[in-house]
């Protein structure tokens, strides 16, 4: 065209080139219709499974009862245990051997054995005993179940003792009884102590990391495997534009996934969301920096998709395990507690849970935002530098 202003040898503005690249990337990803389902349906599916399966609540513990006494008193003990809702009688027998068998086969987690003469001992105040036998294989469940069972029996004993000492007056709550000290416990943020309220927001963080990390790393490596990365290099794209074009699509996908899983969490699982939505989006954007950065970094390290996938997994698993997702950071050895400070998942989960359950403002959680910004910026810069070098 005559009269047109002289243009740089690169066609179009930088923004146009990035835009074209993003468009190409979207087209490439969604050319396979199955990818739609993978990117938008799989997270819902995963959230549903996680939401329902990841539960550390202890209830309906399978309980095997061997009652040698067969008295009103012994039945009352069993009744006290089951009335709590924590225990469910899964079998009864008159022989101790059956109890052992049930534990060995895993048909029961708790065995209750009430010796003959239990009622007599109880009346004579001669130290009546109930045997509790626990399968410790699932240590968490066994620990909590043991606590419940012992407290129920102790409360029952206390009530019987009071009844004897003060002459009646056993009309009180299930655990407290007519105790000298009543404990009034109140759980903040999650009054019913539903573990789902804690875990589902965590899954949101986990899924976004997985999607951004995996899609970014595999997208670049695939181009390298197929040989189209070289074509991109000889195109007028500058390396930074190439990086932007490779990461922006997955950042968008990540944000859309965030919207989907948050909606499922709030409307399907009824997890309270008490904080501010813009703060959640801001945190997610900062968090995505780390995900994309690490994905890019993996893509510079891996030659094949298989390598990329394995490397991603090797980063992802420790990042999740050391994030406080299922295991509290405060229970880790000190070295690992320090290590979690450079883990973006840890900071993001802290933010997400604070926003969902505690509804705190920016003032209480800004350090985590700062941490996400620093970690994400550093990872992305490092990855971009490496990527730059491999492209040159």
């Amino acid at each position: 065209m005559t009269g047109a202003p002289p243009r740089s040898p690169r066609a179009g503005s930088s923004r146009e080139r990035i835009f074209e690249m993003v468009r190409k990337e979207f087209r490439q990803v969604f050319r396979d219709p199955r990818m739609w389902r993978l990117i938008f349906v799989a997270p819902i599916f995963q959230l549903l499974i996680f939401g329902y399966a990841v539960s550390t609540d202890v209830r309906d513990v399978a309980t095997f009862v061997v009652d040698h006494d067969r008295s009103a008193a012994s039945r009352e003990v069993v009744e006290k245990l089951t009335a709590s809702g924590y225990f469910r009688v899964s079998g009864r027998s008159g022989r101790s051997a059956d109890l052992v068998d049930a534990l060995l086969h895993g048909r029961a987690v708790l065995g209750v054995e009430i010796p003959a003469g239990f009622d007599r001992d109880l009346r004579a105040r001669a130290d009546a005993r109930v045997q509790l036998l626990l399968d410790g294989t699932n240590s968490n469940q066994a620990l909590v179940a043991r606590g419940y069972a012992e407290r129920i029996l102790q409360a029952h004993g206390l009530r019987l003792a009071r009844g004897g000492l003060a002459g009646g007056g056993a009309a009180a709550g299930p655990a407290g009884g007519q105790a000298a000290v009543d404990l009034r416990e109140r759980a903040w943020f999650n009054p019913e102590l539903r573990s789902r309220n804690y875990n589902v927001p965590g899954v949101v963080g986990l899924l976004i990391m997985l999607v951004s990390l995996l899609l970014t790393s595999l997208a670049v490596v695939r181009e390298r495997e197929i040989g189209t990365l070289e074509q991109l290099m000889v195109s007028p794209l500058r390396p930074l534009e190439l990086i932007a074009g490779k990461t922006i699509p997955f950042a968008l996908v990540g944000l859309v996934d965030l919207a989907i899983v948050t909606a499922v969490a709030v409307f399907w699982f009824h997890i309270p969301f008490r904080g501010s939505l813009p703060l959640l989006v801001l945190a997610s954007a900062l968090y995505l920096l780390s995900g994309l950065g690490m994905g890019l970094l993996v893509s510079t390290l891996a030659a094949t998709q298989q390598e990329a996938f394995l490397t991603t997994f090797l980063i992802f698993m420790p990042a999740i395990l050391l994030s406080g997702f299922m295991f509290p950071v405060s229970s880790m050895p000190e070295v690992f507690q320090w290590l979690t400070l450079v883990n973006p998942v840890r900071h993001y989960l802290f933010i997400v849970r604070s926003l969902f359950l505690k509804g705190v403002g920016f003032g209480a959680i800004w350090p985590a935002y700062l941490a996400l910004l620093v970690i994400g910026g550093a990872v992305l810069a490092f990855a971009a530098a490496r990527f730059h070098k491999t492209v040159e």
Partner: protein
Amino acid sequence: MAWLSRTRLLAVARKEVLQLRRDRRSLILAFVMPLVLLVLYSYAISWDVRHIATAVVDQDRSAKSRELLDAFRGSGYFRLDRHLDRVADAEPLIDAGRVQLVLVIPPDFSRRLGSGRPAEVQALVDGSDANTATIVVGYTQAVVQDFSARVLLRGATARLPLAADTRVWFNEELVSRNMIVPGLVAVIMMIIAAMLTSLTIAREWERGTMEQLAATPVSRLEVVLGKLLPYLGIGLVDVVVISVAGVLIFHVPFRGDPLLFLVLSTAYLIGVLGLGLFISAVTRSQLLATQLGMIFTFLPSFLLSGFMFAISAMPPPLRLVTYVVPARYFLVVTRGIFLKGVGVEVLFVQGLLMIAFAALGLALAVRVFRKELA
């Protein structure tokens, strides 16, 4: 042409091994990953709750209230290092996650105790982490109940008329590591299937080498078995490494028969690998195969097997789903052999299921393969 020739089978296996060896990094990861997971699971993380950060609001400041606080200290689970004047002061601490528990002792605590009326103690817990909070509440209740019983029975000569005699079997100290390591064996095998096998056939399709393979005289069964063998080797090495490391380094008990453990592990592994090959052959795309592998092999074995989360706590529909998760049964096998020391007499059903699973995995892989080679 024989249906199954050893020469051809080994040729396919050798080709797969060569390919694996060239991909040195994947191979290293296949061995490193299990060890990393083992260390993290056994050493870094646990559900054990200790050093509960506790803030105390003691409005009574009497000998009795101090006695109660001493009982908390004596239990070894609480760290009472913050003393506050008002409950309101505790709020920002809980918000920031610096305090998990606030104990409030009201001003009339000792007066009520003295006059025989029930005194009241408040426990405010950060409930956001429900599991930790449940354990914290449990410990708090135990301390208060003990204290309460002591106060009640003081003077009276009586002891509690009823006592629980608790014994824990199989994992006597309730160490979470003993629960995790045997389960990890099952999960890691699934990871190998999802990560490695699910890629092998998809990769051949993407690179266009599938036609070459189809042009050779190998039968489908030979291809499937040949592709499976090297991974079976990797998987078994991983199983042995994890078990030995778990027993020697992390002192997880191994009470059963090692041979039975190996046999059933092999059967399970064959089923898992067959499933991986099946996914690979169906998708023909590495990206999709890895994702589907994650969703259909890794996630269920991780979440729905009882590995960390008790199946009894799941809602009924999900509990039904767990019945078709092979890892659920394999977990009974590993925990049974590791911790309970049981043999075939107890694991009879699970053993049969493992063999059925192996057959099913192989059949699926061979079946899908047939269409494509035709």
